[in-house]
């Protein structure tokens, strides 16, 4: 309740805008009853200070702090991490496969290879001085997958003596030649890569190519793909074992195998992109602007 003892307090609170609506109403009623106090309320209201906005702090810029301190490095790290992870994944997948694919196959101290010349014919690779080889050559159980053309590897192994060659039936190629060296320890007994005919594509692309399964019972040589593929020679009595690319050796469903091949192809593409980016980064110098400082990173 507003009285003569506390009305000034209400007036101050009115000037400060702290009165509740009902208190405001009570004050107005009190002033209505005592209109001579209206001037005093106006005087209290006039004590409100108004800031002069033209008075500004001139040294404001000296208070500002750099906002990008160490942020470029933090922001760059995720990008580098992505490249690093991508490169690591590609390396983990590519390096072992590459080494495996490039490892020369040895059979009885000989390496075998073939050359695809797209003639549409299938020829035995060679080897007629070895009785065992001849016997094998006449057998339909011999399984061979294809070849690559005009590769240095083929050229290098083409100098092998024909007497030590094995009969090989090329399926996707029209002409198969023996490639390899002598006196090399035997590596695997059942299956081995005869050669990789690398032309213009990388080993990863070789891995990514479609494998060819050959059944010796209904063996029909058909040239379906001129791209070089890994040649594998399967020396096994199991006729159901078909030669193919690396992925064909892994026991899995065709659907999963195709998916894996697609994945390998994607990895090869990513590897190529990462390599290009890496080369570009190596050739160029990166620079980050941290505040007013320019940070240059050279490789």
């Amino acid at each position, binding site marked *: 309740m507003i009285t003569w003892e506390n009305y000034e*307090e209400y007036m101050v609170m009115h000037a400060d805008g*702290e009165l509740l609506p009902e208190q405001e109403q009570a004050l107005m009623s009190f002033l209505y009853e005592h209109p001579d106090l209206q001037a005093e309320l106006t005087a209290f209201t006039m004590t409100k*200070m*108004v800031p*002069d906005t033209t008075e500004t*702090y001139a040294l404001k810029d000296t208070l500002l702090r750099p*906002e990008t*301190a160490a942020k470029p490095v933090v922001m760059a790290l995720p990008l580098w991490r992505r490249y690093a992870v991508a490169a690591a994944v590609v390396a983990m997948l590519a390096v072992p496969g590459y080494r495996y694919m490039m490892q020369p196959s040895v059979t009885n101290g000989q390496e075998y290879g073939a050359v695809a010349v797209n003639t549409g014919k299938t020829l035995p690779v060679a080897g007629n001085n070895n009785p065992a080889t001849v016997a094998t050559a006449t057998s339909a159980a011999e399984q061979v997958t294809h070849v690559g053309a005009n590769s240095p590897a083929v050229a290098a192994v083409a100098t092998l003596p024909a007497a030590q060659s094995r009969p090989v039936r090329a399926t996707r190629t029209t002409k198969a030649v023996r490639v390899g060296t002598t006196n090399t320890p035997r590596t695997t007994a059942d299956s081995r890569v005869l050669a990789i005919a690398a032309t213009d594509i990388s080993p990863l692309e070789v891995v990514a190519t479609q494998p060819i399964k050959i059944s010796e019972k209904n063996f029909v040589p058909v040239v379906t793909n001129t791209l070089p593929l890994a040649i594998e020679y399967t020396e096994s009595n199991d006729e159901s074992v078909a030669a193919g690319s690396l992925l064909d050796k892994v026991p899995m469903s065709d659907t999963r195998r195709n998916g894996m091949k697609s994945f390998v192809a994607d990895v090869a593409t990513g590897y190529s992109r990462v390599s290009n980016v890496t080369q570009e980064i190596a050739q160029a110098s990166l620079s980050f602007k941290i505040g007013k400082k320019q940070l240059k990173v050279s490789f």
Partner: protein
Amino acid sequence: MDAKQYNTCVREWADALFRFAWKCTGQQDDANDVVQGAFEVLWQKKEEVPAEKGKAFLFQVAYRQSVDNFRKRSRVVFKEAPEEHYSPSNPDLKKVLDRALAQLDERARALVLLKDYEGYSYEEIGRITNLNESQVKVYLFRARKTLKDYLVSVENVI
């Protein structure tokens, strides 16, 4: 609060803080020191101060530096507005109010400025000045009454 939010506080509140400190200390140089000191403290404690509390924190530091520093120096010297001859033809209320403000002690002056310049409520002023709401209400009442009496006396002179 990060560096960006700190800089936002600088851009938004440096001028208001400077005006507040200038009115509190009465000296522009002291006001510059108060502003710099307040923002320096804010920068040092930016990890502990949320961005939305930046303004209140700045005024709290500025209030302490203005009031406490004046108490330590024992030099409550307010640069009063120059004496002028007030006539009906020159009723500059702002200058009269500045002179009236000089009549207040540093704490009452700070409370009035926090209320009028920044629009803080009694409760918010209490948090900034470390006073309870009743104390703020009492101090502001006395300050308003002093200012009103000064205005009335000037008008009577006029």
